[in-house]
């Protein structure tokens, strides 16, 4: 708690001191030097709530997640006090509700520390960087000569959107992307061979949603005249051709 001794005049968030309710909980378990497999739930709950109160008195914003944890702890505490109904004694310890996530969280926290102890690039060890000033990006794929991250792509797109008039519609939902994706797949097929039957395009598609997406893709492609749709007179088979 040393780091918040000087009562700062500005508001801070509790998350700036503890990364979350789990972190605070770990802190309390550690401070009390108790066995995490046998947490004195009443004590820890009391201290947890005191901590939140104290934070509030220091003008520190307590995020909702911390309150949820307080409620969980209080609930476990009350369940501990109830006599167990069955005589079999195989009822689960109410503390398991918090122990499991806590143990897993702790485990990963240790792992994070182990990682930090490795010789980190550009801190413990250094490599030669390029002389011509271009930044070094490691190969993503051997033989691939261009390197960009997906994020750079979205960034570029976002900037364009900002620039362009707002009335231009950007109907980018996962659904419209699905149709685009299907169009691309159908174009792939038509690049391999000049035609494909209507039937084939639907066969591999299991769900109702997929069928609709495929149908919309075909309609869109026809509208753009990327494909021709023909039906055989006798057999009735519908074929899609590359335009």
């Amino acid at each position, binding site marked *: *708690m040393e*780091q918040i001794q000087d009562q700062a005049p500005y508001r801070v968030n509790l*998350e700036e*001191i*503890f*990364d*979350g*309710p*789990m*972190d605070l909980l*770990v*802190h309390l378990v*550690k401070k009390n030097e108790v066995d*995490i*497999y046998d947490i004195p739930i009443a004590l820890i709950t009391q201290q947890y709530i005191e901590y939140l109160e104290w934070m509030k008195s220091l003008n520190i914003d307590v*995020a909702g*997640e911390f309150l949820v*944890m307080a409620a969980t702890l209080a609930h476990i505490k009350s369940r501990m006090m109830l006599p167990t109904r069955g005589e079999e004694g195989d009822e689960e310890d109410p503390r398991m509700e918090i122990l499991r*996530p806590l*143990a*897993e*969280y*702790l*485990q*990963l*926290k*240790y*792992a*994070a*520390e*182990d*990682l*930090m102890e*490795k*010789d*980190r*690039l*550009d*801190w*413990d*060890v*250094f*490599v*030669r*960087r*390029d002389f011509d000033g271009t930044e*070094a*990006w*490691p*190969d*993503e794929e*051997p033989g691939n000569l261009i390197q960009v*991250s*997906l*994020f750079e792509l979205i960034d570029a797109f976002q900037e364009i959107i900002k620039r362009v008039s707002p009335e231009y519609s950007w109907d980018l939902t*996962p659904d419209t992307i699905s149709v685009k994706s299907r169009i691309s797949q159908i174009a792939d097929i038509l690049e391999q061979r000049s035609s494909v039957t209507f039937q084939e395009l639907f066969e591999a598609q299991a769900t109702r949603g997929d069928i609709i997406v495929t149908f919309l893709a075909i309609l869109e492609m026809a509208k753009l005249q990327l494909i021709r749709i023909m039906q055989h007179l006798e057999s009735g088979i519908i074929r899609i051709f590359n335009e």
Partner: protein
Amino acid sequence: MNNLNAIIESLLFASDTALTIDKIKSILETADRKAIREALTSLAKEYESAKRGFFLTEVAGGFQLRTRPEYRQWIRRLKESRPTRLSRAAMETLAIIAYKQPVLRSDVEYLRGVDSGGTLRTLLERRLIRVMGRKDLPGRPMIYGTTKQFLELFDLKDLNELPTLKDLKDLGETWPNVSR
């Protein structure tokens, strides 16, 4: 130093990324993977025994020369490097993704107990994590995993080299550094 060793050393020296054996093979136009591997081993040994200023490490599927960690203080002064430190929140999130991948944002948040969107975004922008796909769930949430840059940052050959998760029962009195 024999010629192949010297040539491979010059390639390692000039490359700003880890070099795979395949890459070296294609540059040298040789089919002899074994010779390359032997040259790499002998270089690594020599750097070690002579205690040179740099060493050869196998990282992210390739080989790379790096300055010896003992000299970090001097290199930091040379580079005037401010640590590109990762906050505890970022490290926690990164560890969760590394060990649990492929993983959803909701899994990360369940474990951490807090909203992690901002942290994920930061890690994405620093290219330490990437979108691996989408889960077939309402809203089609993105699935995250770690990148090659992640391996490079922590000097890992591959994900199998991640430190093994500790059994908490064996830990006894040691605690992670919870409050800074």
